[in-house]
């Protein structure tokens, strides 16, 4: 069994980081940053998601490289869906 076993301390640390980020995003949302608000919220959410994926889901210690390829390609194709759809909506105003 080659699975990596992380320490309890690490998990608790990640948990604490997630809690802090939740507080940060909730607090920041009360300040009007204009268009940057959404960007900040998404950056924090992505940071949290990365923490979950890398540590809780153990991708950092995963034995198969293939898993990483799978995740990256999934996110990549989601990106294609979002970006190319927006390519239409975003450029409708141009004449």
């Amino acid at each position, binding site marked *: 069994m080659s699975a990596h076993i992380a320490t309890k301390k690490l998990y608790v640390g990640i948990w604490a980081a997630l809690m802090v980020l939740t507080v940060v995003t909730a607090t920041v949302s009360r300040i009007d940053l204009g268009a940057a608000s959404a960007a900040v919220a998404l950056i924090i959410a992505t940071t949290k998601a990365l923490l979950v994926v890398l540590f809780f889901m153990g991708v950092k210690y*995963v034995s198969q490289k293939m898993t990483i390829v799978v995740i990256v390609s999934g996110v990549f194709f989601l990106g294609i869906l979002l970006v190319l759809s927006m390519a239409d909506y975003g450029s409708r105003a141009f004449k």
Partner: protein
Amino acid sequence: MEQQRESAELGMWLFLITEIMFFGGMFCAYMVYRYMYPMAWEAGSEQMDFWFGTINTVVLICSSLTMALAVRSAQVGQRKALVILLIITMLFGCVFMGIKGVEYYGHWTEHQFPGPNFQFAGPDAQHVQIFFFLYWAMTGLHALHMLIGIIVVGFIAYWSWRGKYGADYYNPVENTGLYWHFVDMVWIYLYPLLYLISHKHAG
């Protein structure tokens, strides 16, 4: 055995990718309409209860911690800890669903369920309704995943108690963990996208 473990893990990740794309369709709809009707989105988000959303986020993060610790217990073969942690995870899941239920009930009584009975006093009620539709659809789909997750964790807890899993075999525990964390991650995005658009939260 090793091959089986790796197959199961790869299969699970592929399944989660399909889940990403499944939710992705709705995120795409969300993004397009938010881009087109930002005011309606802000107005809709103002109707969200900031505290319900935030508390649920905290609950889910805690459940993820207990889930991660449960998988760890399985890896090191601590059966009792495994069962207890799984049950705590389930309880967190139930708390989440309970809060969500209260929240849904509130929206329902305030006619914030899209359809013929939808009511909204402000301008552009039409697109606020689309916000609410996506809110119900996205959180509803998420809640459905939570429900499935709670049931699966329940079964896993039962089998763990029966001693089915140990340090040499814990694929199902691990894959359930992956699923649980994934569902948690969806919420990590839903929370700011639905609850935190408006800057004027009540409370």
